[in-house]
């Protein structure tokens, strides 16, 4: 293990790196870390033992600072062709800074929950429970997918003139979701199981697909909707209650933990389960729980790499790091927890002041212009990581991401790109489907 002072410096470097890029819409820390490793490598500029701590700083910063992009740079115009996220509604009401503050309340609560859990609970509780349940992960995964389909809430249909028309309007949206899931799954299956992308992109072959599903489609919607840049109130004021905060923290922590511990189950899916289990309602509670959920999902999942009795590799960053160096000692585990606390403190301040700054100067640069710059950058990242075929994947996945929005269905159906091929593989049907698609 490196000296503590070195680990501290590398953690701080990670926070700085993460903070500088995480506020940009469409950027994901996992993609940028992969790009960093691909371009600069690890071991020359940075000692390999320091990489997990650099990553922790960057991931914590992402979990905090990405609130800026989801609040300020994911705006929709007031015609609201599609349903808005609560953060978008806050922005349209000039309360973007309040949304960031609510998120930060959740993020801090999530950090405290994670640190206390990591010190006193997780080492004792997680290993036996994981041991007992891990052989059934496929069961949970397929159960969540089935539930996603069965529980899709038809947003239209009420106003049809006849029962048949009402039924069609409702099911049009449900069919749209199923289509998005299977198209995403088909793309994911091809990307994972063929040599469409170069073998040199082994660690980043899913990157252009996810940039398309969630990043590029989001940026294109920003460009298409050409939203108004409304004046924002920079006051430090939030409307919520202690009850809502506690309830949201509990729900967020539950969803984040499920997503962090079990593979393939993402933060959004964890939030869906926990939201139903704790019956959450209210925009303030939703935003707070998002803060909790994302910190535990991203940071908690990565921390499992350090947990001595379990050492689970969860998330793209953990896979990337573990391919270079895996922490081994309990001392490194404790140092990681310290790094989380330190990084969280700095990220909190960075996010808070950046939000105040943006709230005061929100309409200086129009989001449409920023979105053009980001779109070009996302294309460049995809090309650098996966070459020209990566751009083809980016194009197709962006179209699928936009389909989800057009059908007014859950964006999380795009996770079919990951879930479906993994389910096919887990159940031993990869060969069958390759044959069915004429791919092998």
């Amino acid at each position, binding site marked *: 293990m490196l000296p503590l002072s070195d680990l501290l410096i590398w953690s701080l470097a990670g926070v700085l790196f993460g903070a500088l890029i995480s506020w940009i819409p469409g950027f994901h820390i996992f993609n940028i870390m992969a790009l960093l490793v691909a371009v600069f490598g690890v071991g020359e500029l940075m000692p390999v033992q320091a990489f997990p701590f650099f990553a922790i700083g960057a991931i914590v910063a992402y979990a905090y600072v990405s609130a800026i992009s989801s609040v300020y740079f994911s705006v929709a115009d007031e015609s*609201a062709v599609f*349903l808005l996220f609560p953060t978008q509604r806050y922005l349209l009401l000039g309360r973007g800074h309040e949304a960031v503050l609510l998120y930060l309340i959740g993020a801090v609560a999530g950090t405290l929950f994670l640190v206390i859990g990591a010190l006193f609970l997780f080492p004792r509780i997680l290993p036996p429970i994981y*041991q*007992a*349940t891990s052989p*059934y992960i496929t069961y949970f995964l397929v159960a969540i997918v089935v539930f996603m389909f069965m529980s899709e809430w038809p947003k239209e249909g009420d106003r049809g003139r006849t*029962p048949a028309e009402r039924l069609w309007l409702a099911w049009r949206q449900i069919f749209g979701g199923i289509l998005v899931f299977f198209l995403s799954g088909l793309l994911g299956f091809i990307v994972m199981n063929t040599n469409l992308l170069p073998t040199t992109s082994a660690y980043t072959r899913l990157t252009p697909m996810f940039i398309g599903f969630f990043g590029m489609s989001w940026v294109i919607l920003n460009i298409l909707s050409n939203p108004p840049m409304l004046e924002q109130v920079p006051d430090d004021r939030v409307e919520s209650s202690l009850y809502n905060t506690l309830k949201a923290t509990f729900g967020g922590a539950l969803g984040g933990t499920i997503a962090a511990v079990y593979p393939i189950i993402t933060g959004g899916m964890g939030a869906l389960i926990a939201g139903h289990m704790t*019956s959450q309602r209210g*925009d303030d509670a939703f935003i707070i729980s998002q803060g909790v959920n994302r910190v535990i999902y991203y940071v908690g999942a990565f921390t499992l790499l350090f947990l001595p009795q379990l050492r689970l590799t969860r998330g793209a960053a953990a896979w990337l790091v573990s391919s270079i160096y895996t922490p081994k000692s309990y001392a490194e585990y404790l140092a990681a927890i310290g790094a989380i606390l330190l990084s969280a403190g700095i990220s909190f301040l960075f996010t808070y002041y950046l939000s105040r700054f943006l709230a005061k100067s929100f309409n200086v640069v129009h989001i449409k212009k920023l979105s053009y710059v980001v779109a070009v950058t996302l294309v460049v990242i995809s090309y650098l990581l996966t070459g020209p075929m990566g751009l083809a994947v980016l194009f197709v996945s962006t179209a699928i991401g936009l389909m989800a929005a057009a059908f007014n269905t859950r964006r999380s159906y795009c996770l079919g790109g990951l879930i479906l091929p993994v389910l096919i593989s887990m159940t*031993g049907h990869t060969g069958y489907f390759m044959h069915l698609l004429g791919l092998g």
Partner: protein
Amino acid sequence: MRGFTHYISGLAAATFFAALVGDLRLGILIPVIAAASAYFPDFVDFKFGKFLARRDYEIDPAPWDEKKHYAPRLVKVSELSEENRYQFFAIEGTVEDILARGSGKVSYKVLREDGSEETVTEEYNSIVFTLNDGTGKITVEAFGDDYEFFEEEFGKIEEGKKLLVFGYVDVGEEGLKLVVSDAPHPQGIADTIARAIEEAYREGERIVKIHNIRLPGDVYRRFLVHLDPPRREVRVEMGPIVTPGGVAIGGEVPEYRKYGVAKVSVPFIKTYPKPTRIDSFSGPEIAFRRAQFRGKTVVKDRFLPWHHGFSHSLTMGMIIGLVVFAFFKLIGYEHATELALASMIGQWLHVFEDQLGFMGSNLLPPITKDVVPGFKLGESGSGLTNFSTAWLMIAFMIWNFNRFTDPRPIPMSDAKLLLLLAWPSIVGFAIAIVRSFRLRREISELMDYYTNLEAFEEMEEVGGI
């Protein structure tokens, strides 16, 4: 209970069968059918029943714009008729004649929180003009707070000026008029519900669908429907604009168009002691049914009449079990019997969990004909009961996975492990039971009150009942 609570109960039901757990360990995922069966009643009701159900009255206070899917709908004057009275629309046209500008005093009744009425008198400014949109003319009227807003928005109103006016349709002495406002008038809602109750008393049943009010920006105008049996009134209160998460973001309507009150000439009772709140997602359906209540004929309300019917019965559980058994036996699944039992138990758990709430279900049709009232342990959306139940199911799953694995991953006695896992649910249920006593008492008092209503007795004297 919420959907996931039922669903996870089905997931847990499957884990009580060692053979199914063995299949899951081998990657055979068929037992997930038990979870789908547990969720099936809500799936059928909310994906089919809701849309196919009969509607005798459809109340749409603010019809949607066809393309944008929010209110107000931009209409032509020629499209409007008296049937649109109190509905919220937008009209674009040119000011033709200024008929009146003025000020004066207006008096209106305000309902206080305790149900008492108060008459308020205010000074107001107003303008009345005709608007021509090429298909016809309509009188537009703005007064009070709405006039102030109107003037702020459009400046001085002159003949020849083009305007996009929002407001509710009303019927005056000289025909239709548009009253400038930012919400429909609640009187239309109250009138229709009152009419449905009276018809139900004569004809047996009337089902009313109430649409919600969606506005630009994915926000909703909240309104409350309060059935007041003691006063024989239906009161509708127009509330603030809220987000889909239920957070009020302002936009309170002026007092003079906040309430709609309609008198009902027949006795009715409300079975749940809270007003019906309509805001985001979709509006409710309410069935008004003639029923006997402690020896008297009254009209009773039933929320979402298409919900908790045959799909939520133990009979349906048996049918699901038989269908699952037949299908999986036919395709040669080795553990079809266990799967059928797990599916039936999963569906029964759904019925039982819903029975803990208010609505209740028709448990054993065709033997039972009507809904058996729920145990009133908590509302369906209660976080406490949902979490307690879902957590108990998670505890069961971990417990079953452990006891059906050799060697056991968690080397502990079954009883001790279950207790360690399930204690949060035990605490949660205990709190819910204590809380439910208060609510039961409130409902009981309300029902006693209905029985002793003077209004009921008066009706008997004049032969109304």
